[in-house]
């Protein structure tokens, strides 16, 4: 983006992000491309997206985001706020990897424009634990080995936390149905079910 005001306000750019992720090799390769991109003058025929200011709370912290209108909550979290815990899977609301809690309800952050989050309270996987103390659902996922590769896990855990607080799913079949928006390619479904049931028992 050539408009430098938004990255400053929101704290980061894609370039910062890559650098901080320690992708030295990729950084070296990308450096010439990026410096070229920086000099790129946008085609005046193509309008730039308008900027949108959004006030919201993320993991209890008030934030003011000034972002292009087409930035999703998912991309705002990952690429602007250095919070890569929320994962991008399909980016079309089909896999659930991007699940976060908005005002207590689980949602797909990939289908939510950041501009739609005015006044919202967002909880991500990074906000579930209290310091070193894991959330009971995180503990239960560890205990029951409810993951293999772990990519879907932040979404699974946020979705499971939402499921328990919603309080509608009681039986195994109901829990499986209520978790159908979270796909796990490793097939850890059985252990995810056990983890959720354990938390439900103590909730």
């Amino acid at each position, binding site marked *: 983006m050539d408009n430098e005001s938004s990255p400053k306000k929101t704290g980061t750019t894609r370039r910062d992000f890559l650098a901080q992720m320690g992708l030295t090799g990729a950084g070296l390769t990308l450096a010439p491309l990026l410096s070229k991109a920086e000099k790129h003058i946008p085609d005046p025929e193509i309008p730039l997206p308008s900027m949108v200011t959004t006030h919201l709370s993320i993991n209890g912290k008030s934030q003011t985001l000034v972002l292009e209108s087409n930035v999703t909550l998912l991309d705002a979290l990952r690429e602007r706020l250095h919070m890569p815990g929320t994962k991008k899977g399909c980016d079309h609301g089909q896999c659930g990897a991007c699940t976060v809690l908005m005002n207590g309800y689980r*949602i797909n952050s990939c289908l939510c424009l950041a501009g739609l989050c005015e006044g919202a309270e967002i909880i991500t996987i990074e906000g579930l634990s209290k310091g070193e103390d894991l959330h009971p659902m995180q503990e239960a996922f560890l205990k029951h080995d409810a993951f293999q590769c772990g990519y879907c896990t932040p979404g699974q855990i946020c979705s499971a936390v939402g499921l328990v607080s919603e309080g509608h799913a009681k039986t195994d079949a109901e829990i499986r149905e*209520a*978790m159908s928006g979270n796909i796990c390619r490793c097939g850890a479904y059985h252990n995810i079910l056990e983890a959720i049931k354990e938390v439900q028992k103590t909730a």
Partner: protein
Amino acid sequence: MIPFSFIRTKDKETAIRDGSVKGAKFIAGGTNLVDLMKLDIEKPDRLVDINALELKQIEVLSNGNIRVGALVKNTAFAYHPEIIKRYPVIHEAILSGASAQLRNMASTGGNILQRTRCYYFYDTAFACNKREPGSGCSAIIGYNRNHAILGTSEHCIATHPSDLCVALLAMDTIVLTQGPKGKRSIPFSEFHLLPGTTPHIENVLQKGELITAIEIPALHFSNRSCYLKVRDRASYEFALASAAVALDISGGKINQSRIALGGVGTKPWRALEAEKHLAGSDIGQEAFRKTADIALASAKPHQHNAFKTELAKRTLVRALMTASEIA
């Protein structure tokens, strides 16, 4: 996503004014619109965010009708105590659709306006009369297993995807709107349009006209109702065939009924002839099967979806059996 401007509105009048501009679209939950914008299928110049409007109430009116604000989330709609108690068909239809996350985001108005999941509509490499009027229909000559068998035209055979709409149609719901020309009450059966020669025009809404609420009429037998959905996966999948039914029963006979079908029509499909036939019949497989034959009498299958005619009939028979057994 192509660039667009984004405007938040606080009242209906401003929203309607901002939404009346060429290239503008209202956005509420965004679950369908944002997805289509990522694929360059929807390309609005301007999004008008209506989430701050006071359209989030579910009210039971003095005449027993239930008015559901356009911004009520699908989850809140499904689990409202009056819906669970009086309209199991609506409760079940909502919960059979999408995932918990999407139902937490999706609005009532947006559900009614959601667009087809025809894979040719979704793929900009293919011709599609809905997406690009006049470009042709790839589904008619292509792979059309998921497509409609009722209400099709030579220009489009895309299936209407909503489950909720099927239940709302069976309940004779009214769509309440407000637009530049004032307020309207639109019967659900008149809201969606058949594709005909203009499949890109999917409903009767005018530019800038906003759905403000829906009103579900009180019906003395709506508690004896159900929604049955048949699909390729057990959850989180669109219907191959579905049926919303309600039965008014006394003394082992059907007095009257409500029957609507999903997954098989280019719009939510009401089976009025079948309802007429069923009136006065004895409860049982025989009458239900004849009813299903009438409901699907005008079915026109294509190369890969002929199975849907029989599937829809069996789905309807099963739904009628289930509803007749509700105590």
